[in-house]
């Protein structure tokens, strides 16, 4: 880290930089200082907490798989083809990144809800999506899909097509090229994108509470549980918050360790 070379930066830049770093670290320290370490374990492992944590991990995991299944083809199409309206499509795909999650939740409600765009179709199939665990997964996939697409599209563009061209002249069909050359080469970017998507899904709150509600054991994920506990049992909320902070730190470590995509 310490390099003998001078950076050329004016010294005063260090002051606002340090203030910014403090601004991020201080709240985490404050949170940790409020944890009741004596009762931490029992708070974190209470029935409602455990149920919320397991639900969160399950739904976020499923959402991540969905992101990979849908996002990898999207990234491939965006990075490797050109068609009219591609720039528009790319902007629309990014929309969930900047949209307030509660707006996303309402949009999903009017798509998959009973009165929604696809409501009748879903009714015919005998399914009920809104306010179910499925709704949680849908909400999480909606908000985290752009993370995977953006991350992977960038990696695909950086990797370029030269290896793919060579593979095709060696007699490999397009599917073989994709499986044996393209995907292995962008694996670090794909892993980073998947981890980011998982993290975003795990923290999802607004779209979930709007579209899926807060039914214990069905749609009440960890962030919802923390929000509710804050009223009745602040100590439990703090303890569970710390759990999410630890998960977040692990996620960043994982992404940093696996690639330099960030």
């Amino acid at each position: 880290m310490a390099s003998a070379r001078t950076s050329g930066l004016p010294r005063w830049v260090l002051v606002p930089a340090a203030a910014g770093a403090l601004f991020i670290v201080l709240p985490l320290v404050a949170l940790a200082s409020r944890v009741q370490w004596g009762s931490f374990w029992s708070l974190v492992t209470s029935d409602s907490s455990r149920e919320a944590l397991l639900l969160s991990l399950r739904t976020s995991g499923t959402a991540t798989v969905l992101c990979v299944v849908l996002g990898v083809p999207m990234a491939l199409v965006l990075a490797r083809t050109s068609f009219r309206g591609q720039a528009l499509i790319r902007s629309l795909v990014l929309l969930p990144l900047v949209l307030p999650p509660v707006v996303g939740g309402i949009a999903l409600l009017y798509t998959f809800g009973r009165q929604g765009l696809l409501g009748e179709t879903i009714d015919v199939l005998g399914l009920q999506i809104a306010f179910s665990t499925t709704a949680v997964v849908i909400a999480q996939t909606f908000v985290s899909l752009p993370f995977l697409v953006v991350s992977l599209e960038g990696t695909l563009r950086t990797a370029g097509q030269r290896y793919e061209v060579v593979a095709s002249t060696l007699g490999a069909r397009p599917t073989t090229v994709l499986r044996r050359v393209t995907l292995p080469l962008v694996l670090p970017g794909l892993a980073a994108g998947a981890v980011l998507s998982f993290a975003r899904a795990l923290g999802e709150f607004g779209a979930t509470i709007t579209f899926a509600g807060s039914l214990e054991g069905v749609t009440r994920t960890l962030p919802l549980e923390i929000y509710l506990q804050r009223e009745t049992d602040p100590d439990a909320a703090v303890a569970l918050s710390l759990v999410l902070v630890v998960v977040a730190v692990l996620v960043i470590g994982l992404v940093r360790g696996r690639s330099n995509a960030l």
Partner: protein
Amino acid sequence: MSLHLTATVADRDVDVSFDVADGCTVALLGPNGSGKSTVLSVVAGILRPDAGRATLDGATLFDLAGGTWTPPHQRGTGLLAQDALLFPHLDVLDNVAFGPRSTGASRARARDTAMTWLRQVDAADLADRRPSALSGGQAQRVAIARALAAEPRLMLLDEPMAALDVTVVPAMRQTLRRVLDGRTAVIVTHDVLDALLLADHVVVMDGGRIVEQGATRDILARPRSTFAAGIAGLNLVRGRAEGSGVRTPGGLLVAGMPDDETVHEGVTAVGVFSPAAVSVHLERPGGSPRNVYAATVRELEPRGSQVRVRTDELAADVTVPVVAELGLAPGVEVFLAVKASEVAIYSA
């Protein structure tokens, strides 16, 4: 496995048509930007031309009038570029086994084939290495083995030695000479040695068009294009036949020996002579019948015991003492003289 190609690529202003006979290697020569690599891309199926057709051994690679377009993986055209482009996530053996694997061979069988080809290019000892652990020359050897292991019907080589260290080029050229022997191949190159040692025929391109083609020896001995004369190390002046000489568009008459029955008064003709036949003077020389041109020295280039003196159009080879005696340096005004008996005149 002969190749017949006619193709037009409008946005790169390339329009070519040539054949490669079965088992022959054709060298595609020409200045940078003359469209050589574009031609290879079209044959390999990486670039779609605007018009034209190509057949390889009777099979249609593309026929745009008929709407036929064979994708690259079904063409049987192996491509070797300047960079080896070995797949970084596979070791050397699996890189070479990639072609056979892709066309359906079992893993064991593909690795057997790969090992055979690695031996052919003297790279069997590299089989377990990762591409990142290879030198440029080693990587290019492996790339040759990888291309050949896919059993291409036509090999396309795009300046395969341009990115290599000069010390490994001679050995690589020997390897290519060995593996290309009897194969149908097209090699893009800048090097006269590649043309001489690897190619039976030469196609010279300039500005997206073919300016001359023929047997390598003929082209290098009797070039008709400035580029071919340049790589053959010869001086070339172009103009119209007049008497026993060539009149250049600039009005200069170059007297020579028309050694060709096709040279008739007024036809387009070239005068070709070696730089060794050119003498350099500070004063306009008189005496025996010869051609004299005023010129300005642009560059001096050591060549063994000689020095090549380059002017805007012509080059002369002189000895080091002559350079010192005449005080030759870039910018010096000189007279170049060449005897008519040293200038071969033939139609272009």
